[in-house]
């Protein structure tokens, strides 16, 4: 896999079980995600093609795709994830960032809540988190 040179947000796919599923492939407007045939193939991300648009996050039925931007600021990274709960936080709110096990990591600022119609009720939340937690933060509380 080619490493992304210019920095910026990039998708992180946490799908490891050869499930028969491929909407991520078609969700990517830049052709960066490949599943192919059979559809139980694991999705492969071509990082050099990923523009970090986040389309795939809401389209993945398993909610297994995230976006991480480690080049955001000196000390801060951005992590984006799907969040199908109420209440939906608003941009600017300070929330608790949690890891894959729901454990508290730090407080974090909500940068953006993307709840566009085409996401079909799966809002995507962009959180500003301390850079050391960029690979750990996966949801909020």
């Amino acid at each position, binding site marked *: 896999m080619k490493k992304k040179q210019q920095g910026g947000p990039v998708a992180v796919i946490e799908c490891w079980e050869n499930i028969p599923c491929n909407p991520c492939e078609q969700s990517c407007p830049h052709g960066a995600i490949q599943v192919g045939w059979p559809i139980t193939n694991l999705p492969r991300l071509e990082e050099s093609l990923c523009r970090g648009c986040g389309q795939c996050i809401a389209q993945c039925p398993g909610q297994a795709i995230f976006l991480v931007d480690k080049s955001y600021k000196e000390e801060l990274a951005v992590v984006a994830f799907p969040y*199908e709960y*109420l209440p939906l936080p608003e941009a600017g709110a300070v929330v608790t960032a949690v890891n894959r096990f729901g454990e508290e990591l730090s407080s974090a600022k909500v940068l953006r809540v993307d709840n566009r119609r085409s996401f079909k009720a799966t809002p995507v939340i962009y959180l500003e988190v301390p850079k050391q937690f960029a690979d750990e933060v996966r949801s909020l509380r």
Partner: protein
Amino acid sequence: MNRVDNHPILGKAEPKNKVTIYVDNNPLEAFEGESIAAALLALNMRVCRLTPKRQEPRGIFCGIGQCTDCVMEVNGIPNVRTCITPVRDGMRINTQVGLGKWQNDKET
């Protein structure tokens, strides 16, 4: 309080007509058309009947009319599956004891 008025996927609950049901003769509020079992659950009432031999409580189990654990006496008819029977205004719903009683049993 048990009602899910707002939901992240389904949105706000559609407004429904409020009706009065009589559960063991107590007038209570329910929504027209919802299942009796749902109406009772929303009222925190989970015991539908008492078993014939040991008088043990039973409530809903499968929720889709297959198991018959949630049967009650409805408008004088015993063994009505409350999970698939819609609420109507003025409905009389009684906790069923054992095999229950037909209303006209009393007259005969």
